[in-house]
């Protein structure tokens, strides 16, 4: 009994010693809903380890109540900061107020909340419209004024990535009259549907001879479509340009094989910018911007796709 009390007090003591140096940070993750989410968790842990941060990880298994409980336990433990990837946008006010009262800064990762912006330090995320725009601008540059009929594989109808990535791409090609989206259908973000819908595009567009480029809202659909193009006897990457978004490992294999042309990265490294902002905040109280936009980097066949594949394949995608 005495021993246990002693250990508990030692533990409390270590917490107290750690305070002020941003060494203990709690991370409430949504769960493992997708490969990208798993990669985000892996990268966050790697970033924390590189910086010597003691990361307390909590998996909420897609439930908000688990996340709120995790946040309360982080507050009770007296962590220095909290990273939160919120599963839904609403219902965070009271727990964020508790964190604010305990003077623990909260950084949102990837998704936003509807609460008062004063309740969190900053939010790190990607701009979906920007991603689409980067893809569109790449295509404008790649075709260089030649006429180009584009087919588009949309994400799940009505989902925000599908809407924003479509709008972004249209903004990206807005100035170029030579580029025209001739067919646009949903492929539900899956390989199977990507392949199936691409087959029908090829049928409808003269066996694919009238298609100059494919824009897919995610890499998985592009990977499926590439197979459909190959089976139709065309060369993906040459006869039909392929540009997509996400930068998952499999698209780098396609890039390395010359079957895809470009992908826009949705980086799983949201924690890096978050840790940078926290470091600056703890060092001299610098208040970061309320929204830190991650870089939507464009990868083409020239960016060592084989090496990128090796670097990413073990992240848990």
């Amino acid at each position, binding site marked *: 009994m005495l021993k246990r009390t002693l250990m508990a007090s030692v533990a409390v003591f270590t917490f107290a010693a750690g305070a002020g140096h941003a060494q203990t940070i709690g991370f409430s993750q949504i769960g493992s809903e997708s490969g990208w989410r798993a990669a985000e968790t892996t990268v966050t842990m790697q970033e924390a380890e590189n910086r010597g941060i003691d990361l307390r990880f909590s998996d909420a298994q897609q439930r908000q109540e688990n996340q709120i409980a995790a946040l309360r336990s982080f507050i009770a433990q007296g962590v220095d900061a909290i990273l939160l990837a919120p599963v839904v946008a609403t219902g965070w006010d009271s727990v964020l107020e508790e964190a604010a009262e305990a003077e623990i800064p909260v950084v949102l990762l990837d998704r936003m909340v509807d609460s008062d912006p004063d309740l969190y330090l900053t939010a790190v995320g990607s701009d979906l419209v920007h991603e689409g725009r980067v893809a569109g601008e790449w295509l404008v540059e790649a075709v260089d004024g030649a006429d180009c009929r584009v087919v588009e594989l*949309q994400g799940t*109808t009505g989902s925000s990535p599908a809407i924003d990535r479509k709008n972004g791409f249209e903004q990206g090609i807005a100035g170029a009259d030579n580029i025209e989206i001739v067919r646009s259908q949903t492929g539900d973000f899956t390989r199977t549907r990507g392949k199936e819908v691409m087959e029908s595009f090829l049928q409808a567009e003269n066996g694919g001879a009238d298609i100059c480029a494919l824009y897919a809202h995610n890499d998985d659909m592009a990977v499926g479509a590439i197979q459909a193009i190959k089976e139709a006897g065309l060369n993906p990457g040459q006869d039909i340009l392929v540009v997509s978004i996400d930068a998952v490992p499999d698209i780098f294999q396609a890039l390395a094989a010359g079957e895809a042309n470009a992908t826009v990265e949705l980086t799983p490294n949201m924690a890096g910018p978050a840790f940078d902002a926290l470091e600056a905040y703890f060092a001299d109280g610098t208040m970061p911007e309320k929204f830190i936009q991650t870089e939507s980097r464009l990868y083409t066949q020239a960016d060592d796709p084989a090496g990128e594949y090796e670097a990413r394949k073990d992240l848990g995608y």
Partner: protein
Amino acid sequence: MTTVLRRVAPQLLTLVAVIMLVSIYFPSFWQIVYVNERLVGIPIDVIKRGAPVALLAIGMTLVIATRGIDLSVGAVMAICGASAAWSIDQGFGLWAALGIALVAGLICGLWNGLLVAVFDIQPIVATLILMVAGRGIAQLITGGTILTFDNDAFSYLGSGTLLGVPVPAVIWVLTGIGFGLLVRRTALGLLVESIGVNLRASTLTGINSRVLLIAVYMGSGFCAALAGIIATADIRGADANNAGLWLELDAILAVVIGGNSLLGGRFSILASILGAMIIQTINTGILLAGFPSEFNLVIKAVLVIIILVLQSPRVLPQLAYLWRGRRDRSQRPKQSQTSQQNAGTETKT
């Protein structure tokens, strides 16, 4: 033969009508060319893309004929696809992968069959369990990722061609013929129907209904395994989250469009397969027509409603009456003779 034709006449007519409708939007529907050692054309796409639903519908027809339902087939597809991809990934080779996937399907069917036949759990509940749990099992096998593999022999099953015809189409045609012969050239079909009409009475007459029920669910699991193998081979990867997602509903719809009663009893596998082809023609037609994707499901729903209303017990006899009435006026004497003949052969269908 004529009785079979008469049984599937509404489905054939519907299929023709749907094809004509698609042809309005896409006049070159029947244009089939031969490139790259494969036939390319919209009808080819339909019979290839319709393979999973057609296969599921074969197994589902038998299950529904016993007054059951199998909601787990989509999840079983995911499990079997994941097992096959895992085996290939482990380097077991083509035949081992096929064997493991088919055995996995049969085990899933056995599980459903035991719950229904031995524990007397209602089929919709018994199969719901595997429908929900199955994707979890599949995710455990793939480790939560899309498990990709590189094996040309296995991919051939999904995207290869045999004499220009897509292999998936060959698989469902052969499976359909196999199941058709099995139930119609033996007494099995009749026994399945009798279970569906009255389980208790059938058991009392000496039919081993328990074994037969389990066998029927295992047959459905077998068909789902084939569908899962095709779906996995097609994209060269096992996607536990999306493989066969909601296809159980399309399969049930195919059986219903095929004019089979959900209350069990008489069934026609051929009609169910035609139902699957009708659904796939609608799906492909929607993709070809180039409507915004928001309309996809609405258009499909409207067409399905029209088809089901036309085939409903209220409307179909009326249509048949009008049709027969017209024929009667032109060739009355011949008609009565054939109908007598048909009455004689009716029970054998």
